[in-house]
């Protein structure tokens, strides 16, 4: 039972990060019908921005500001930095290809992904970086927390899971309750019609990239608070986020959240109860099964194509 609770906590931590990444894929896919392969690398850059700002603030061992402010500042910095990066990528790598055949932006996205990962290695090297959150106040983020049965849920995980859910709720409100959100949904539904209705498509798309990339930046910090980061993690993180988006139904925001959590649970329980060695295989098989038997995902709309 304890193992089960522990694995569930693991799954939630993992899944909430996946969900944040998946949201970025889904948002962009929604308005542009583009698989943004570079998204995983934006996430990676986010982990590094967080690391850099953390060092500027004195490092985890002797921060110049209180702990809550420290985590807030690095999260906001990563979100801001990634948002700018996202806008730049959209403006220069995708916008010129908006009306091009569909393969063009996909390939451009592959190029951006490759470019970002290698540029980061050029500038910052391949050594893994860690935030050293364990050193904050003698490990209080790891040892304090609340108990479920015999299992303690530490503060750091509560922060990770809580922040992720808060962001998701904020996003949900933003998309469903604001005018900009309405414009996004309209664009996602039918871009040309939306344009004819007087919606500024460029603004909507830019806004979408800001949202998606900022979420990736936040995910990056949530991830790197607990786990070391390297310049090479973008590919795998992107793959996981993208799997989550597809499971949930790409284009659907609640779907991405659900997909992220499902993927987290699948991974965690597989490693816990089935096999560590073949855990990747199990996860991919779930995905492929979804692709073949329910390509629109859990919550996605069936893809009806009008000609």
């Amino acid at each position: 039972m304890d193992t089960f609770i522990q694995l569930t906590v693991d799954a939630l931590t993992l899944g909430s990060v996946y969900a944040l990444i998946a949201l970025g894929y889904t948002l962009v896919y929604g308005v542009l019908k583009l698989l943004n392969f570079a998204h995983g690398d934006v996430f990676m850059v986010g982990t590094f921005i967080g690391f850099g700002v953390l060092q500027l603030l004195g490092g985890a061992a002797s921060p110049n500001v209180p702990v809550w402010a420290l985590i807030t500042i690095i999260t906001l910095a990563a979100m801001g930095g990634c948002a700018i990066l996202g806008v730049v990528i959209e403006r220069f790598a995708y916008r010129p290809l908006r009306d091009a055949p569909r393969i063009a932006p996909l390939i451009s996205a592959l190029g951006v992904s490759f470019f970002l990962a290698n540029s980061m290695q050029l500038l910052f090297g391949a050594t893994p970086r860690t935030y050293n959150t364990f050193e904050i106040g003698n490990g209080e983020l790891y040892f304090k927390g609340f108990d479920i049965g015999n299992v303690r849920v530490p503060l750091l995980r509560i922060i990770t899971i809580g922040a992720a859910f808060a962001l998701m709720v904020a996003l949900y409100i933003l998309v469903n309750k604001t005018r900009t959100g309405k414009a996004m949904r309209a664009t996602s539904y039918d871009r040309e019609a939306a344009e004819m209705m007087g919606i500024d498509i460029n603004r909507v798309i830019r806004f979408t990239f800001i949202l998606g990339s900022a979420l990736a930046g936040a995910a990056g910090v949530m991830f790197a608070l607990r786990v070391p980061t390297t310049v090479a993690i973008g590919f795998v993180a992107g793959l996981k986020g993208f799997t989550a988006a597809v499971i949930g139904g790409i284009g659907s925001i609640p779907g991405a959240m659900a997909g992220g959590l499902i993927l987290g649970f699948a991974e965690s329980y597989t490693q816990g109860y089935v096999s560590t060695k073949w855990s990747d295989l199990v996860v991919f098989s779930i995905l492929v099964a979804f692709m073949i038997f329910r390509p629109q995902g859990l919550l996605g709309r069936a893809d009806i194509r009008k000609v």
Partner: protein
Amino acid sequence: MTDSTPHSSDTPASGPAVGQDEWVARHAERRLMRGGPLAAMEERLRAIPWWAWLTLFVGVMCLLPALSSSGYVRRVGFDTVLYMMLALGLNVVVGWGGLLDLGYVAFYGLGAYSYALLDSNQFHLHLPAYAAIPAVVAIGAIAGFLLGLPSRRLHGDYLAIVTLFFLQLFQTIATNGDSIFGHNVTGGAFGIFTVTPLHAFGHTLVVQHSGVFAVSYYYLALAFFAVIYVALRFVNLSRTGRAWRSLREDPLAAEAMGMPVNTLKLMSFAFGAAIAALTGTLFASLSASVLPLTFYFVLLITVYTMVILGGSGSQRGVVLGALVIGPLLELLRDPNKSRVIFYIALVAGLLFAFRLSRRLGLVAVATLALGFVCRAIAGAIHHSWVAGSAKGGFQHVLSYWLIIPRHLAGWIPPVTYIGVIGVALALTLVRGRLRLALLPPTLYLAAFVWDNVMLTQPDPARYIVLGLILIALMIIRPNGLLGERRVEIV
């Protein structure tokens, strides 16, 4: 949800011809507007039949070992021929079938592993080449067919995802294949290191003589290449080839016209996979080893860059793409050659942008002057700012123009690198005089970054170049060097 392909039904009469979209048509128009001697030359070159080109090309390639006795040159030549074969195979799926296959290199790996299992100490099988090669090709084709099955239901991006996960699947199985139900099949992460070279009728194709790469494998690869090229050429001209093109242009219309769309997709997958598997055979027998990570994302990106650069859909194009990218990646390993390539690319780029106009002279003079001034100022402030190593002729000349500090402060690489990207991107936004004025500082900064930041780490730098080629090409010339005008994936 509407299809993203714009304006297929409401094209105005003066607009593009049936079957083309507007964006492509405008592209073609712009091209036809120009004329001049180059266009005339192009017309004449077009008149030469394809088989003459091929013969000439293979003939020249055959001369390579005669030009250089270096095993390295031959080996790079061999690798390039393998790349050309891989690009030809990918072209069938992406360029002709119009299916975005991100699992392509898994078939290459599958071929290599299949040969390794049939010809190594792993199961103590040592099949002769005439049995092993057809077997591997058949395995590749069947695997391609099987992966193609889900593609009947999926299109576009979804297909890309499934194929990408097929690549992951292949990786996972190859890496963990050392205990499949207790049997060691693939050698796991250690790979298989006892693969025998190709052999038949008691003869073995030697790989090397006293450490130097023997030419036999090179010629064998070249022969395979020529056969594949000719075979694909005929396939492309056949009914199947035409059907593929119709599938690529518009799967729905093709289906409506009675094309067996599913069969065509499966065939395209199977063809590409079989070629990749055949290439894998050559690779495994030459390397004498297979390792799982060989067949992964970097290779995928490399082959895609070749196909896109050359022009997806065009056989000549993808071969040219492989011929450019393969050796380019090799040359960029060496800082001295890399520097030469950079300045040639810079000059070529300027010529390409300005032709031989007054503005070109202006920019060139301004850049040179700017360099000397900056260098002089930096030198006057502190000697160590310009005291970087000056070895070799070219660099010696260069050190009068470029600031090469002895030590780079830690903040310089990120700031200048991000700076040069920023300025270059800004350049694409401004026009006219402002652009002209911004150009010399950008060029100088680029030269500074290349020499001081990129050259110190050739290895990420090579891949950065690859990524840049992909992005820039998509924006400036999506149909590649010799591509057909349109490749649409729906």
